[in-house]
């Protein structure tokens, strides 16, 4: 209990630190820390799948994305004057109002009315044993399909910000590292381990915590590391293989969904073949998610920005 109180206190303190103070860099570092703490909170709340996602995305990729962005932004932005904060009082009042309302609502929640029992009852027909995976890929697969498209849309949006002349170049800023240096060494050691962990997470997701998103994120991190260590250049945005990899997940998912029409309705997975179908979808999704996330973090092609 004490543990929970301390954890909550730290989460609050870190959240406060992330939105206060002057430094952007500091705020981002606090956000990374926030991710670590929140993933612990998820464990306390008996949500290992979410803890995995939070650790991989909240503490991992989002942090990397923001850290890179801070430095890039300072490089790009000139010295123009700007205000750190405005509307402090209205913002404070609004935030306090919403918080108060939320607490009031939370305290006023009626008896728990979750779907645990319904999920448990339907689990035998879902094809996987992990209830969270069953919800993600079967009961509410439609959400998940759309979510993979959200990622893709964001990537297309980021690419659309490319300078006209840079279209077709390699994604992101051209990365390089000292040959034989520490970074490169890291880039050689970690990927095999990361690959293993990523694949393990996907495979484990059917029965226990894990799944395509968590595994895909780890694989994306591996790919990013390879790129950052200068070991593998980022792909060109026009590369056909890359594009196929991007759409593989949503396409397979959509394809299975349409095939479901033959079984009586869109996205229907017949119980006896649900497991292989889900595993197929997950495999394709993992590939797409990994590639998409890595490219999202790398950003638009900017060959001119490199050495």
């Amino acid at each position, binding site marked *: 209990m004490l543990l929970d109180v301390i954890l909550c206190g730290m989460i609050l303190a870190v*959240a406060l630190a992330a939105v206060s103070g002057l430094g952007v860099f500091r705020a981002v570092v606090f956000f990374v820390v926030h991710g670590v703490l929140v993933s612990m909170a998820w464990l306390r*709340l008996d949500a290992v799948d979410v803890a995995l996602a939070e650790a991989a995305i909240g503490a991992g990729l989002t942090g990397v994305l923001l850290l890179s962005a801070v430095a890039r932004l300072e490089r*790009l932005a000139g010295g*123009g004057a*700007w205000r750190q*904060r*405005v509307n402090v009082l209205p913002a404070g009042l609004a935030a306090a109002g919403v918080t108060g309302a*939320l607490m009031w609502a939370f305290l006023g929640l009626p008896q728990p009315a979750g779907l645990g029992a319904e999920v448990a009852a339907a689990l035998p027909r879902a094809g996987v044993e992990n209830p969270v995976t069953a919800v993600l890929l079967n009961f509410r697969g439609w959400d998940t399909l759309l979510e993979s498209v959200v990622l893709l849309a964001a990537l297309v949006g980021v690419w659309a910000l490319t300078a006209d002349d840079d279209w077709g170049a390699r994604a992101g800023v051209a990365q390089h590292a000292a040959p034989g240096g520490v970074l490169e060494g890291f880039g050689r050691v970690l990927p095999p381990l990361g690959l293993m962990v990523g694949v393990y997470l996907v495979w484990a997701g059917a029965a226990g915590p894990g799944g395509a*998103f968590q595994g895909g994120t780890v694989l994306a991190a591996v790919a990013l590391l390879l790129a950052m260590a200068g070991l593998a250049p980022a792909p060109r945005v026009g590369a056909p293989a890359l594009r196929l990899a991007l759409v593989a997940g949503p396409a397979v998912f959509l394809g299975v969904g349409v095939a479901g029409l033959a079984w009586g309705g869109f996205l229907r997975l017949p119980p006896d073949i649900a497991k292989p179908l889900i595993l197929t979808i997950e495999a394709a999704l993992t590939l797409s998610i990994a590639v998409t996330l890595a490219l999202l973090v790398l950003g638009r092609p900017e060959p001119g920005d490199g050495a």
Partner: protein
Amino acid sequence: MIDPALLYGLTGAAVVGLGLYGFLSLRHLLRRVLAFNVVGSGIFLMFGAAGYRGAVAEGTAGADPVPQALIITGIVVALAATALAVGLILAHARATGRRTLPEDDT
């Protein structure tokens, strides 16, 4: 004895408030995106805590899986939004040399 679900739920609500305050008051665009993510994590925490309530009350194995699945979806969607926002911020900075929206300059 405090109910942990309640504790985390209220913490989540407070995190939402903090993030919201940052989102509304800060002008540096990256910090606003960051604040957006803070709000998001607060929302998810509240949601997760609400789903955990059931597990505590019924004494069944595990929390409600549906909120967990939704939260995972939400986290990924938030990441997508963050990535697009960061891309926009950088492109905007490149075009204008600003870290903020034009109307937020002095």
